[in-house]
C-alpha cells in the first residue's frame, strides 16, 4: 500500500513537473510561399525563437525578418527593402494560446490536433489570427506544425501595381518547431 502511495506521489510530481515546464526552440522554421502563374516566391527562416508553456497554453514566436532566405538575391532585397521594411520593423511576433491542452497527455508519444489563436504582428501591424495545428509528443520533445494564410494588405504591406501579378494576394505560412524542455 505504501509503495502504491509513493508511486502515485512520484508519478503526480513527474506530471506536475512536466506540465509546469516551459518548452523552447531557437531553431524553429517558418516558410512563406507566394504562388502566382508568373512567379513562385519562397522565403525560409530557420532561426525562429519560440516558447510554449504546457501549463498555461501560452505560445510566443519571435522572428527576425532579415533571417528569411530566398532563392534569388533580388527577391530578398525587395522583401527587406520594399515590403517587410526590415530596417524599420526588424521583428515579427506572435503571442497566443493553444486551446484544449488539458485533454492531452504529453507523457505519451502521440499526435494531437489543437486550435491556436492570438495576435500576429508583422510590419508594425497587429492582427488576430486563428488556425489549427498539430502538436506531437515524441521522445520528450514536442513538435509543432501549422499552416495558415496571411494577406499582406492586412499588415499594411502594399504591393506596387507593376509587380501585383507576381505576388499572391494570400501568402501561405508554414510553421515547424521542435521544442525541447527548458532546463
Amino acid at each position, binding site marked *: 500500500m505504501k509503495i502504491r502511495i509513493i508511486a502515485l506521489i512520484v508519478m503526480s510530481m513527474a506530471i506536475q513537473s512536466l506540465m509546469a515546464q516551459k518548452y*523552447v526552440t531557437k531553431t524553429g522554421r517558418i516558410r512563406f510561399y507566394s504562388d502566382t502563374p508568373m512567379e513562385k516566391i519562397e522565403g525560409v527562416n530557420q532561426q525562429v525563437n519560440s516558447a510554449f508553456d504546457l501549463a498555461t497554453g501560452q505560445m510566443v514566436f519571435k522572428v527576425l525578418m532579415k533571417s528569411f532566405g530566398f532563392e534569388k538575391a533580388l527577391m530578398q532585397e525587395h522583401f527587406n527593402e520594399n515590403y517587410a521594411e526590415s530596417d524599420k520593423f526588424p521583428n515579427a511576433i506572435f503571442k497566443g494560446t493553444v486551446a484544449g491542452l488539458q485533454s492531452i497527455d504529453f507523457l505519451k508519444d502521440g499526435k494531437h490536433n489543437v486550435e491556436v489563436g492570438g495576435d500576429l504582428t508583422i510590419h508594425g501591424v497587429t492582427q488576430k489570427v486563428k488556425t489549427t495545428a498539430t502538436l506531437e509528443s515524441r521522445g520528450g520533445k514536442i513538435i509543432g506544425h501549422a499552416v495558415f494564410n496571411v494577406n499582406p494588405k492586412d499588415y499594411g504591406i502594399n504591393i506596387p501595381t507593376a509587380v501585383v501579378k507576381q505576388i499572391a494576394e494570400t501568402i501561405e505560412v508554414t510553421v515547424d518547431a521542435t521544442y525541447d524542455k527548458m532546463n
Partner: protein
Amino acid sequence: MHCKTDLARDPFPIYQTTYKMKKNPLRVIVAIVIIALASGIYVWKYLYNKPHPDYLTIPADVSVDANTLFNAFVADQALAESTYNGKVVEITGVPSGIEQSDSLQFVVFVFRQGDFGDEGIRCALHPRAVKHDFHLTPDKPVTLKGYLTGFNGSDVIFEKCSFVE
C-alpha cells in the same frame, strides 16, 4: 569656309539621312531587336538572377568582440541595430557550444539566462563552412564572420557564418 564646302556637297543632310533610313527599315528593326534582346539578357542575368553575396569571401564591414556586441544590443537595441544590422560582422569570442539542427550547424555564444533559456549570439554556419569533425577547445577563442540579421530579444542572430583562420 569649311561649312560652306559641306553644304555644297550635301545641301540637305537631314533629309538624306531620313531617306537612307526609309530605304532600309530592316536594319532599324534588327538594331531595335538586338538592343531589346541585350537589355533583356542584362536584366535577366545581372538584376533578376544576380547572385547572393558570397559571405565566405566578402570582407567584414566591422570587427568586434562577441561579448561587446551582445552587450551593445542589450544596452541600446536601436543604436546597435542601426550600427550592425544587415552588415557582415566579424566576432571573436569563446563559444559555448556547437548545435546541429537538420542540415544546419550553429556556433553558440552564451552570455546570460533569460525567457528562452541560454541567451547570447547564434551563428548559423554557411553550408560550405560546416565542419562535421569540428570540436571546440575549451577557453580557446574563435573568430567568425557572417551576415548579422538582428536581435530577437534573446539572441543576436547571424546567418551564413564562416570561421576566420
